């Protein structure tokens, strides 16, 4: 029994929106999806006229859809933005080199300039080399920290005003759940912000225009628009802790589809009690990047890798930061705790 589109009523519905359950035809879905992102951008005041914006592009569905929609909205509503693509090469053979090919194709398709920065040139380490030293358990920590800095460094090289990433509603909801599970109060109150603060010197603000877009809808949009994207999961990710939060969120969504936005709403309305100890933002003594400790996470991780002590950045070893800064050698006992686990 054919169902009519609940918006235009004229055309036949071809899909059911995972977010609201309404049946829509293709064009009404495209319009609703794009319009919601436009509303998000406008109500949060994400961009200003004349700004140059770097779109974090990995070749995956989120960043491809983001690049496409940003281009469409920029033209449709006259945002007056200069858009470009910024990509990070982590050095994962078989995964990243394939997705980078997709990004290069996106560059042609969307006619946007592209810059690629790599871990190799920035840090002297590829993810393949890191995993060989660290193993398969904590490698996502390295990649996430390094990538964040790599994006910032690339953006600074390009002299852009803002960075935007393809984080979607599912990602934000997973992060909220993860931070509750891990007891990370500081991140819990930051993770639902749609953009980072722009008051730090040299820190380029970052925002998430797709914050309220469901992952399922992004997939549907990319499919119906026949967008070109790379759909394989990172080969090193199966053991990440985030997987637990993701599985739970998917189950929640199957019981009640609005759960994803509901979790984000909870995250946004949380408030911290007075007197709870929170970290203070400062700068890294070594590289000047934003940090709440003497050394930023990136420097600590790198130091650990270079010294053959990969567990230096995993777990709490703040007391050792002073020693590292002063270039003092660590005691044998300290070194033993930080070496990789023997299997």
């Amino acid at each position: 029994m054919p169902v009519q589109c609940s918006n235009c009523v004229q055309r036949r519905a071809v899909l059911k929106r995972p977010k609201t359950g309404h049946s829509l035809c293709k064009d009404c879905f495209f319009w609703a999806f794009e319009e919601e992102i436009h509303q998000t951008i406008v109500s949060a005041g994400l961009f200003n006229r004349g700004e140059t914006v770097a779109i974090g592009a990995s070749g995956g569905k989120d960043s491809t859809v983001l690049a496409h929609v940003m281009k469409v909205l920029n033209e449709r509503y006259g945002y007056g933005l200069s858009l470009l693509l910024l990509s990070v090469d982590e050095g994962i053979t078989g995964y990243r080199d394939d997705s980078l090919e997709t990004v290069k194709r996106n560059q042609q398709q969307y006619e946007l300039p592209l810059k690629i920065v790599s871990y190799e040139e920035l840090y002297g380490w590829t993810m393949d080399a890191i995993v060989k030293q660290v193993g398969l358990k904590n490698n996502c920590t390295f990649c996430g920290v390094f990538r964040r800095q790599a994006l910032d460094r690339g953006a600074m090289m390009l002299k852009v005003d803002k960075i935007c990433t393809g984080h979607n509603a599912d990602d934000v909801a997973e992060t909220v759940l993860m931070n509750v599970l891990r007891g990370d109060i500081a991140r819990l109150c930051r993770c639902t912000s749609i953009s980072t603060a722009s008051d730090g010197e040299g820190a380029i603000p970052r925002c998430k225009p797709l914050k309220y877009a469901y992952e399922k809808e992004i997939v549907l949009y990319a499919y119906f628009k026949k967008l070109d994207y790379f759909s394989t999961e990172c080969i090193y990710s199966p053991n990440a802790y985030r997987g637990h939060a993701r599985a739970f969120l998917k189950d929640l969504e199957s019981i009640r589809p609005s759960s994803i936005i509901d979790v984000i709403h909870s995250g946004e309305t949380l408030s911290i009690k007075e007197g709870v100890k929170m970290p203070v933002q400062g700068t890294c003594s070594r590289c000047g990047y934003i940090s709440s400790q003497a050394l930023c996470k990136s420097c600590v991780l790198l130091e650990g890798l270079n010294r053959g002590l990969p567990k230096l950045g995993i777990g709490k070893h703040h007391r050792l930061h002073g020693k590292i800064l002063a270039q003092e050698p660590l005691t044998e006992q300290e070194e033993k705790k930080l070496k990789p686990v023997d299997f």
Partner: protein
Amino acid sequence: MFRLNRKCMKCKEGTAVLIIRVNDAFCRSCFKEYFIHKFRAMLGKNRVIFPQEKVLLAVSGGAASCSMLSQVQEGLSREAPKKFRFVPGIIYIDDGGACGRSAEERQRSNALLKSIFTETGFTYFIVSLEQVFSLPTSVLVPGTSDPDPSNPSYKQAVDQYIKEKQTLTEENVASAVAQLSIADSAYSPERKLALERLFSSMKTLTAKEDMLQTLRSVFSKLLYSFCFYFLSFLRYVIAVLVILTAIDITHDKASIQRLTESFVTNLQSDFPSTVSTIYRTSEKLHTVMPPQSQTAEPASKCLLCHCTLDTKVDKASAFHATLVSEQLSQIKLQDSSLDAPAQSAEQCCTEGQGCGPGGCCSSNRLPSHQDLKMLLCYSCRLTIKDMVSLRKAPHSWVQSLRVLHSSNSFYDVVDDMASQQFHM
């Protein structure tokens, strides 16, 4: 049952009978001591119950609440310096009417609980969930806000109590009971039917469980003579006990509550600090929304659950995003010719078109979506959304809530919502 060939890690003498946390083996008496100590430590640390205060114990008859009850009895029987200084009362809410239990089953369990409660000597209230429909509106007061555990007057109060050593008289207890206005019979057939209709109109188990929890808490807020809801403190202590017992969960995706329970339990087995971390995280968060600004008047309360409304948020928010999505996915409802069934008889205007403000139909005007937002909090909106027909909400309940909020248009709002759910 497996055998533990280990000595207790605490006394090193007794044979261990169980393992808690990762690998701590305890004998029977050391475990009991440990458990009691944790209970008392939680009370002492939080410092919210002042001496002589009346404390309401919510007992469901399950393992956790019965443990709590016996802990309170044990604590009151101790010698004067270590004795609990509060006055307990018990409430048991019989929700058999919502869960489909027969009258005989309910009477049997009520009688059993009554005998247990009588033995304690504490004041107790056995009420049925149906009675929530006949609550006089005057007793629906908002719950107390977040207490401050670092309150310096707590220490003063304890010191003063020890000096004066007042005892609670019979009269105090009697007057507390007299303040309650639940006098009528618990099993009136009309109210039972009303409860059944309400729950049968909810489509999902998640929404039913939410509604049950909301009604239970509304009920407990009624008993304002008891100023504190005790159970929340115990969750951490009880969680340890619950993790130890074998949990048989069937259909763990039947509702959000069950899914969450099985998720946390399973995660705990791989990451043993999960429960305590979640608990500690929650301790750092406000449970009541703090006022938006210093000079603002007290925030409005949700019509259903009486918690502070959390829907007055920025345009750049998840709540706003959901409204935008709803609007964009369906045609404007003002233009549609849907008619809300059984409207008032005085309809002089044509279907779907009002005669404007000040017109003859203005008093029966269907309120906009904006009006509804002001009445319900985010999660109660979700629960109500699940109801097939809001007409099954008991009329007396709607009446008393309407009086509470002096809003004649609530019942119209209910009709409006019923008509808007055409897509379900």
